[in-house]
């Protein structure tokens, strides 16, 4: 087992464990901090796949901007009280059961497909570098790029309009 495999398994355990801690911790602030750990380990997976641009963007956008926004909302509005256990037990059990059976069905359906043994190129290959991505982004995908800037403008205006005091 090489160093790449070892890093893959460590990052996988870290990702799944912190994702489980997100949904099982009582305090919302702890959930947010565990979600930041999840995003960092997903960025580690991107680095392992040599998608360096996406790794950096994932850290900056998700762990840097989005999670800080979540923390701001939770802490400024003082929402970090532990959740009251009002929900019926069988409803929680049904949720876990349906999610687990979805996972079972997906894995059982995908387990024996033909292309499952194909290799993924790790550590090398330059399509994930910002050079090649930028060439394609500003040549072939220039229209979606500009449309996404309009989307950002409308989202900003929408957030201000919704969030201001009436």
């Amino acid at each position, binding site marked *: 087992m090489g160093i790449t495999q070892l890093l893959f398994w460590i990052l996988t355990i870290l990702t799944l464990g912190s994702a489980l801690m997100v949904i099982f911790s009582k305090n919302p602030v702890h959930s947010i901090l565990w979600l930041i750990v999840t995003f960092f380990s997903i960025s580690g997976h991107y680095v392992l796949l040599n998608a360096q641009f996406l790794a950096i963007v994932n850290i900056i956008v998700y762990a840097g901007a989005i999670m800080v926004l979540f923390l701001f909302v939770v802490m400024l509005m003082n929402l970090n009280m532990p959740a009251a256990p009002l*929900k019926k037990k069988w409803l929680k059990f049904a949720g876990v059961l349906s999610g687990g059976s979805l996972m079972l069905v997906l894995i059982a359906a995908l387990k024996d497909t033909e292309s499952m043994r194909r290799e993924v190129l790790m550590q090398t290959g330059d399509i994930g570098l910002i050079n090649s991505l930028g060439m394609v982004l500003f040549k072939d995908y220039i229209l979606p790029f500009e449309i996404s800037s309009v989307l950002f403008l409308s989202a900003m205006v929408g957030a201000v309009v919704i969030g201001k005091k009436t």
Partner: protein
Amino acid sequence: MTINHYIFLSVALFCIGIIGVLTRRNVIIIFMCVELMLNAVNLLLVAFSKMHYLAASTFDAATKAGTDAQLFVFFIMVVAAAEVSVGLAIIVMMYRNTHSIDVNFLNRLKH
């Protein structure tokens, strides 16, 4: 690493997100689980792009196959950032009106 490791990892991450949406009632945690599902899909797209690149680069060393998938991941992140800003504004407004972030307070359409 073969592709099935990444598929199983993404399926597990996606189902953890679904379990979180179904079992938790705090609307902020439900929103975070949606982000978790988006990230599972992103990871799978990047893994498939590298698989496709490896298959194409055996015939042509200077191929650009797989670049599109990584740009799709980039656009998914863009849309997720816009979604989070509007969604958190909606949560703030909901808290201001109902003084609760429990989704069960939002069942007025039922009655």
